[in-house]
């Protein structure tokens, strides 16, 4: 393995280490806080809050096609709880962005 590959490997392992530390840091912090039993509902609400904090700005910055894909996913998940159908349908809508945009332009 060349010296450059060795350096690259070191950078890649550093990236993996940073991600691993984020995975264990929350749990270890939680161990310190767990004696405060009343915090449990707060801790359990965190992933949902985080998801909303990531989804909503993305939707705000997204296009009309992105919004359409999101609505499709919400409807499929709400009615049928089918993750595969929701994901694939949403991705097909995203991939058809160019065609849909051309079609919308042709209408106007």
């Amino acid at each position, binding site marked *: 393995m060349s010296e450059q590959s060795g350096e690259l490997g070191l950078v890649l392992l550093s990236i993996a280490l*940073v991600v691993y530390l984020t995975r264990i840091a929350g749990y270890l912090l939680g161990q310190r806080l767990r004696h405060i039993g009343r915090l449990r509902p707060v801790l359990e609400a*965190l992933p949902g809050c*985080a998801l909303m904090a990531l989804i909503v700005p993305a939707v705000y910055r997204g296009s009309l096609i992105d919004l359409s894909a999101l609505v499709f996913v919400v409807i499929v998940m709400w009615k049928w709880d089918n*993750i595969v159908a929701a994901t694939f349908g949403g991705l097909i809508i995203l*991939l058809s962005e*160019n065609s849909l945009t051309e079609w919308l332009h042709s209408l106007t």
Partner: protein
Amino acid sequence: MPITGFWRSAVLGAKESTPFCVSTFLFGILFGVAATASGLSLFLGLVMSGATFSASAQFAAMELWSHPLPVSAILLSVFLVSSRNILLGLSITNHIDGHSLLTRLVCLGLLSDPGVVMVLRASRSINNLGYLFGYGAALWVSWVASVWLGFAFSNVFTGADIGALAFAGPLVMTCMMMLFVKGGRGHKLAWVVSGISALLMAMVGLEAYLILPVAVMVGIIPILMQLGGSNE
């Protein structure tokens, strides 16, 4: 019938991860294509994917991948996009007892968003650590295999409009959010408050890495107020 053993729960987790393995597979192929375009070798791409096992972190690193490598910027960017893992770890604090700390720390290496969502959305008689491990292991296999495929067939995707899939991440997150919403054990007010505050921050142009922690902190205020109220 309750499934309480570690390995039986791991098998259940692996089985139930199938829907998200499909989307992970797609992201893996995209990552393989992106990594090839960035000049990463197949070997290093697989080392990175096997050791990191994080689509968002790996894509963030690839965005900054240039020569000479801006190592500090890459590591900071990876930390910022992975900071939600800290919240995931906090949320399962009370759910993975009954194992040695070493076992827990090893299994947490495979911590995944959908795995945590599945553990938290419903109370079941399963070994949660085993379930998370099995869920994460199946996603890991899907991730590494698909990255390899992305490298192997990167020429097929040359010229394809991969940029159109930039919104794919939020779509998968929406699936997870819907699982929470339908799970019925939610903190819906906190989620709505987080969403509204994130929207307001996006509208005023706040940096994305600041929106997550601030929106989460604002979101938990209603729960803290509820706790304070019931204390009086």
